[in-house]
């Protein structure tokens, strides 16, 4: 049984479509990245999946419970880290967690509170008012709150947003630690490097699902791989020679570099190198131009924006 399943999940606010026809399946133990620009509908999706708001149409099953029908069971079995920590600043860290321990019907509230305060390095500050905490500490406390009832699925909405690099790394390390316990993560983030490092699969989302795959496949298969041939001199005949091979429809020459988009570089590279040598080129070195997830993301989101504006111009994604 999948941890999360959605079927044509749609949410409209009056005439505005926030989430359109989302169908995904997330396996147990998976870290699922949910990327999208501001206003893409990421938080609305999380709110639907945590049964905070109901879908307009479609269906979602979380931990075996149907959204809209078994909402309390869903809330009991999932944890959520909201975009802002939302702690009670005038109360101590321990009191904050005790409140949530009771609300989540935790049996050993004191034990669980102590466990997570110690695990997140906040035990020594347990009696301090949360208002005196740094952003990173508040975020860690919010993570502790989300874990008190030991949920098998965790929804994290921008967990490292507005944190300094050190605090962000602490939060990421903790996610890795929790992942090893076999929990399922639904991670909404703007941080593409974070998604690249943490997630098993990534969905790029802007009202609709644009693409869903592993980070590696997103970078390569869907968009091709670019190989750069650095030559000593620049001559148009080299470009013609490669084009004559018909191994790629995307061959570009920029100064003394030739960039070829290939489906299978391991198979094509030897022929291209041989062709270039036969044409008189002196190859200095060959390398693969690795596309970052950011390139992929920007291209997808930009394409969607262009489609929305009825423009079909191809984005210039070549960067060396």
């Amino acid at each position, binding site marked *: 049984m999948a941890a999360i399943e959605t079927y044509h999940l749609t949410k409209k606010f009056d005439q505005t479509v926030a989430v359109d026809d989302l169908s995904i399946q997330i396996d147990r133990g998976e870290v699922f990245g949910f990327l999208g620009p501001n206003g893409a509908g990421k938080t609305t999706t999380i709110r639907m999946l945590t049964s905070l708001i109901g879908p307009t149409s479609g269906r979602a099953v979380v931990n075996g419970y149907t959204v809209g029908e078994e909402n309390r069971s869903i*809330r009991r079995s999932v944890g959520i880290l909201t975009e802002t920590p939302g702690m009670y600043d*005038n*109360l101590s860290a321990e009191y904050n967690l005790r*409140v*949530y321990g009771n*609300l989540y019907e935790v049996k050993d509230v004191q034990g669980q509170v102590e466990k997570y305060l110690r695990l997140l390095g906040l035990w020594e500050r347990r009696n301090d008012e949360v208002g005196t905490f740094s952003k990173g500490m508040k975020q860690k406390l919010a993570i502790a*709150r989300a874990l008190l009832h030991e949920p098998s699925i965790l929804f994290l909405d921008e967990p490292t947003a507005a944190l300094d690099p050190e605090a962000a790394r602490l939060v990421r390390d903790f996610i890795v630690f929790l992942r090893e316990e076999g929990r399922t993560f639904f991670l909404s983030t703007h941080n593409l490097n974070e998604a690249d490092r943490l997630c098993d699969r990534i969905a790029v989302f802007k009202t609709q699902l644009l693409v869903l795959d592993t980070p590696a496949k997103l970078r390569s298969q869907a968009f091709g791989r670019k190989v750069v041939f650095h030559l000593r001199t620049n001559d148009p005949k080299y470009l013609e020679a490669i084009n004559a091979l018909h191994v790629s429809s995307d061959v570009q020459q920029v100064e003394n570099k030739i960039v070829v988009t290939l489906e299978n570089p391991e198979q094509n590279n030897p022929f291209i190198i041989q062709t270039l040598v036969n044409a008189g080129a002196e190859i200095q070195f060959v390398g693969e131009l690795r596309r970052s997830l950011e390139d992929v993301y920007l291209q997808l989101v930009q394409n969607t924006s262009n489609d929305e504006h009825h423009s079909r111009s191809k984005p210039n994604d070549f960067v060396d």
Partner: protein
Amino acid sequence: MKKVTTIIRKEWAEVFKKKLILSTVIFLPLMFTAIPLAMLFFARDAGSSDLTSDIPPQFLQSCQSDLSSGECVQVMMGNQFMILFMMIPLIIPVNIAAYSIVGEKTTRSLEPLLATPITTIELLIAKNLAAVIPAVLATWLAFIVYVVGAWVIIQSPNVMAALVKPSWWFVVIIVGPLLAILSVNFSIMVSSRVNDPRVAEQLSAVVILPLLAIFIGQIAGLFLVNQQLILIMTIVLILIDSLMIYFAVRLFQRETILTRWK
């Protein structure tokens, strides 16, 4: 039930750290108890005087025959300021509820709270009780202090019997909580639309105006708060409270809070 008590304790732990709220809960009932006691104190020597001409005719009619006109004046003054004990359960919940709801909004703590298995009814009950209980307890305590203080000042069983009539006990014990429920639910509605607790307080204070009108009207001799008026007020309050609770329940749905509240 545990969730409700958890929220109530949390609310109290939070709001009573605010000096403004704490001082309202402590000093307002003290002040509203001191005012009628002071009036009785200054009127304590009027017992044997003939002040018939100073008493509004409609009150004179209702004054018991075994009281002298001076004693009747004491009862009248006590009655006029009894309205203050109806203001306490209106004012205190406005303060608590405004800070409670708007506070949750400004710290953005409502979403994680709503993500727990608590039902919105449980949450609404907890928010109501957290504001109503201190107001009602403060009112009852203030009234008991007033009764004891009045006895010390007046020391006349006849005047005391006329001053602290069963209808006033009814007002304090039954009408007080009804007023507090009206106040807190009105405050919840107002708080859902604003982002500043002081603005919420000021707007919610509108709920005091009808009672203030009764207070001024009685002092001006326009009418008398008697058993009939108290009964009408009780029925009207039950109807308004039912309506308020209905709207508050509608307003207190997860989706409404997260998507419609400002």
